[in-house]
């Protein structure tokens, strides 16, 4: 832009007769080097307007105005997420933690755990039990437990004989232990 043109526009500017486009043209002239030494003094004027345009209202400005006017305050939007989010995350986290512990209890149940669930399987030899549970993947954990304590005997009579024998062993050891404690043995 020519110096003469700038001077004309400046005259118009002081008269407040410039259009927005003209004002922008002036601003861009003073923003760019080189500025004619005679016009140098005006540079600060446009620089000042540019800098001041960047300033915006600080936090809580709206409320300060409302307070002055004696009107009800608006909700402080920047404060809300800081206050609420950790609370909600805490609840979700706690729920997740409980879920995980419960899941841990059931899914990672030790294999040798005796369980009543074995009882609910179809009545037949333990081979049948295994087959039945294989077709029910939702009962996988139960299946593991039931196969682990699968019956050694299919015949109750044999099972009774084994239990009877074991009871005798336990009984005898128990009595021997008691005798040794009371000092009547040997």
């Amino acid at each position: 832009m020519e110096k003469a043109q700038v001077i004309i526009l400046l005259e118009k500017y002081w008269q407040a007769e410039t259009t927005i486009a003209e004002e922008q043209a002036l601003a861009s002239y003073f923003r760019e080097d080189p500025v004619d030494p005679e016009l140098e003094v005006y540079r600060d004027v446009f620089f000042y307007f540019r800098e001041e345009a960047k300033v915006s209202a600080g936090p809580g400005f709206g409320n300060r105005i409302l307070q002055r006017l004696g009107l009800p305050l608006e909700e402080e939007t920047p404060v809300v997420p800081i206050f609420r989010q950790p609370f909600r995350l805490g609840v979700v986290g706690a729920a997740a933690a409980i879920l995980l512990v419960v899941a841990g209890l059931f899914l990672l149940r030790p294999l040798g755990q005796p369980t009543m669930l074995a009882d609910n399987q179809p009545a037949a030899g333990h081979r049948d039990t295994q087959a039945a549970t294989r077709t029910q993947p939702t009962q996988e954990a139960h299946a593991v437990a039931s196969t682990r304590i699968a019956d050694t005997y299919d015949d109750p009579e044999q099972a009774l004989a084994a239990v009877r024998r074991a009871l005798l062993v336990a009984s005898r050891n128990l009595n021997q232990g008691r005798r040794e404690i009371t000092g009547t043995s040997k």
Partner: protein
Amino acid sequence: MNTCKKWLFLLPLLLLGAGAFAQEDAIGQFFGKYVDDPRFTVISVSPRMFRLMSKVRWDSVPGDLKQTVANLHSFRVLSTDATPLKFYKEALTLIDRKQYEELISVRSGGSKDNVRFMVKENGDKISELLMIAADEDGFTLMSFVGDIDLNKLSRLSADMDIKGMDNLKNYKHK
């Protein structure tokens, strides 16, 4: 990223839950560990089998035995003749002393002959009786679950000829 960290933090909780459970059932753990081990003889009688037993002819079964069996819920045995004292020690370390109270402990022959009885109590009733026995010939871990009356159990062998029963310390499966 932040959520990722949170989940990482929660992961140990999962293991904690499982860990607590594992600790609770040390005997189950021992059974689970050795149930497929070829060195061990395993006998397991499930609650279902105990119910089926009621259909067996009981004529030849003495009264005390009948009542004792009727109150049992499940029964398991693990026995082996391989490194018995090692397994004996392992079994003892796996037992949760908070749950199982030691009833009788006999040690003779310079720690080579051991029998221990432990019980899990439910109120004033015994809900599980554990017998752990080991000598140089074998190791036996026996678990009776049910309503156990020690006096009845004691009577089962009281009238028997002691001499003929010497080999019965450990349960030997035929």
